[in-house]
């Protein structure tokens, strides 16, 4: 915070960032309540509905503080095009309670907001089965981010341990670990994924499927950051202050943690953000091998797979919601990583 911005502005920016982060995660954690619909509920009469418009001005031109929605009507003979019919409207209410399907019966559910039935409020439109994209986005975020962060954690943990050993010890350990890294990077993963799927039971319950994905991604992803950590550690080992610490008789773990780890954090935080993004997207590929999160559980990976079609770019643009979600998440995590990164100077003798 030395040039360009005043300390006060920086503090405000940092506060705003923290607030945004907290808000993002609260929304994601409270997804079932924030989301107005069950993410698996199919509204088969309104597939590909565009985002529902919130109205504040009614047909006679009067303003309402409480927003309302209009009915949507399919235009006959078109390919799922709809027009609004504001002859029928319904107010949007906050903190609603309603009966909705649960398992094979119904139960009372609470939601942050919802339009009065029978009208619908699809904030981000619907997908090909008429499922609410907004609800799927929120619940999918829980699934995908949890998986990606856990997998990135696994990958980075392996990367730091192996990279530190290889970079610091060198010699045989380095050769062995580097060969191992190259082996992991060299194997035909397309193939091994198919083999891995075959080794698992056919009907994998979602929690197990997710755990499986975390492990797979973790083991797939550690090799590259591992190489970076190794190089950083090897470079740091040759620096004057580390040499000094060694001659002063500091123990190896102490040197690693006190003097070298700070150097590694930079590489690791960047790799972490990169990995989280990669892993969210990787699920689209995994699903080609039957390793994705099974339907009807929403995930950003499966949503992305459905959005990666020409029509989503030209017409059903609301299906790109997970891309926007991913951008927001990446930016927040990136900014967070920069703010939270310890200043290496403080840790140095």
């Amino acid at each position, binding site marked *: 915070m030395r040039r360009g911005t005043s300390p006060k502005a920086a503090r405000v920016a940092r506060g705003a960032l923290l607030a945004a982060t907290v808000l993002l995660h609260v929304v994601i954690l409270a997804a079932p309540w924030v989301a107005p619909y069950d993410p698996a509920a199919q509204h*088969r009469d309104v597939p590909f509905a565009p985002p529902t418009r919130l109205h504040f001005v009614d047909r006679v031109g009067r303003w309402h503080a409480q927003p309302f929605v209009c009915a949507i009507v399919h235009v006959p003979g078109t390919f799922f095009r709809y027009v609004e019919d504001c002859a029928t409207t319904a107010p949007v209410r906050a903190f609603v309670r309603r009966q909705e399907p649960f398992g094979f019966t119904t139960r009372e559910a609470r939601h942050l907001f919802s339009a009065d039935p029978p009208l619908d409020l699809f904030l981000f439109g619907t997908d090909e089965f008429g499922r609410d994209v907004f609800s799927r986005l929120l619940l999918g975020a829980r699934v995908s981010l949890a998986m990606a962060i856990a997998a990135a954690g696994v990958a980075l943990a392996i990367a730091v341990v192996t990279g530190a050993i290889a970079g610091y010890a060198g010699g045989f350990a380095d050769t062995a670990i580097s060969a191992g890294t190259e082996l992991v990077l060299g194997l035909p993963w397309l193939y091994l994924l198919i083999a891995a799927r075959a080794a698992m039971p056919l009907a994998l319950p979602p929690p197990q499927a997710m755990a499986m994905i975390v492990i797979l991604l973790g083991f797939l992803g550690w090799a590259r950051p591992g190489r970076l950590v190794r190089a950083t550690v090897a470079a740091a080992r040759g620096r004057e202050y580390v040499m000094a610490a060694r001659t002063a008789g500091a123990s190896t773990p102490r040197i690693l943690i006190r003097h070298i780890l700070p150097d590694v954090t930079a590489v690791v935080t960047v790799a972490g953000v990169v990995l989280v993004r990669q892993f969210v997207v990787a699920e689209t590929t995994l*699903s080609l091998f*039957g390793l994705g999160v099974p339907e*009807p559980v929403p995930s950003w990976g499966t949503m992305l797979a459905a959005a990666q079609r*020409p029509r989503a770019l030209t017409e059903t643009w609301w299906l790109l919601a997970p891309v926007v979600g991913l951008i927001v998440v990446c930016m927040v995590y990136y900014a967070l990583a920069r703010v939270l990164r310890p200043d290496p100077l403080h840790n140095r003798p």
Partner: protein
Amino acid sequence: MRIGAFCVLLCLAGLAEQRTPAPAGGSARRGGQLVVAERSAPRSFNPVVITDNPSKTVLERINADLIHINRRTFKTEPALAASWTASRDGREYTLKLRPGLKFSDGHALTADDVVFTFQVYLDEKLAAPQRDLLVVAGKPIGVRKVDDLTIVVSLAEAYAVADRMFDGIAILPRHVLGAAYAAGTLAQQWTVATAPASIVGTGPFRVSEVVPGERVVLERNPHYWKRDGHGEALPYLDRLVLLTVPSTDAELLRFKAGELDVMSRPTAEQFESLTGGQYNTVDVGPGLEYNFLVFNLSDGAAGTPLARRQAWFGQEDFRRAMSAAIDRQAIVKLVYRGRAEPLWGPITGANAAWRNTSIPHPPRSVDRARQLLRQAGFTWRDDGTLLDRAGTQVEFNIIVSASRPERQQMATLIQSDLAEIGIRVTISPLEFGAFVDRLTRKRDFEACIHGIGSGDADPNSDVNVWLSSGNLHLWNPNAAKPPTPWEAQIDTLMRNQMSVRATGERKRMFNEVQALLAEHEPMIFLASPHILVAAKPTLGNFQPAVLPHYALWNVDELYWRAASRD
């Protein structure tokens, strides 16, 4: 709007650029090239080894058969053979070749080449995929030469549709392949690395250039035998270019960019984006493909979860209940955007000649499904979960090929449909190889959504699906003897219709097979997608068919309308 205008301009520009002017002296229809896409690069030009569709597409353009099935009328018509007659007992066919036939290298085609061809295809060592078509009642057909233009084909027993088996059997040049066959290296001939000039056939085109992984360029075969109504030599086009475009989205974009002249089989969603007058879009109606849900009824090892679930699957009322609970209209609307036909039997509307029209088409009824389940002794827990007699919760898994998004969508709809009657369905999309492995080899699955696209309208093409001994009798394949009386009945009917030669009688028998299938529902038929094709509007004679290749089946008659040629 502006994008549309751009596209029109671009198409016009593309047309102006790509089309070469008609050669002087040729008719108005002659000239130009047609660019189409294929999912993968052709892997070989050798008819004996080819198994994949992209290679078959090329193969069928550079080769001809003796008797051909018309892709629009489903009737057989003369090709290299000008005529044929059957003996009274139906066991001998005499085929007369057209006089003056030539291979694409100018060499004459005689009965010797035909005899050589069948010798090759029937050679067990080569394991040609065509061999099975040429085996009747367990015995390979006999082919002998009478004179240079006459061949006699003999069958072990009468076969109702013997003329149909010649379709797609490419006649091979003995003067080119004879030596390789004798040396035992036939399977290694005519690869993508072979010099194009030495790949010789009798089709409308011949290979001119191969760019590995990118495209195959075919040029007009000057020795092609077919002529149009005015006696002019076909084909009209100078060149046929087959580009490798691995993704269907990319194919759509390249078609819109004007780089492709034909978009064969767009999805309904893509088709919709092409309608509106700018392109010639044709919805041919349902094809012959039937998609279905099938339960695994092969004997599972006792005590396994599969065996316990098979106790439900084996009950006809259970299967009928599933059928009643599935919303076929939703599949048609949401999976195929309305461009499909809901099915209650394997024969689609495209095949009116063989369809049993008296099979009922009951609409979806959750009430009926519940009633059927109650009848079969199932009950519901308070929370709505379906329980069997023993009080076990009813749930099962559906496998589906991950490379078929439309079948995954069907599974998602069915999952939601069956949740309404208290059944928990899980879906496992599997990579294609793994899917085939479970379905045909390991038989390790509970239920499966799959589709079979018949290669021919005649019921004989799917006989392996209906015979209980068939390897594609998907609910319980390769049975030593029919496990149920109705399967025994189907076996008898299918076997008998194979040798009966009166079409009316065959039809009656096959109607009965369809009725038995509808009654016992070993497969729950779902929907048949329409065949959709689009082309540039100036492509003349463009008449997409129900059988493959949907757009190119009459490639020898396709031409560019003069207006587009500047």
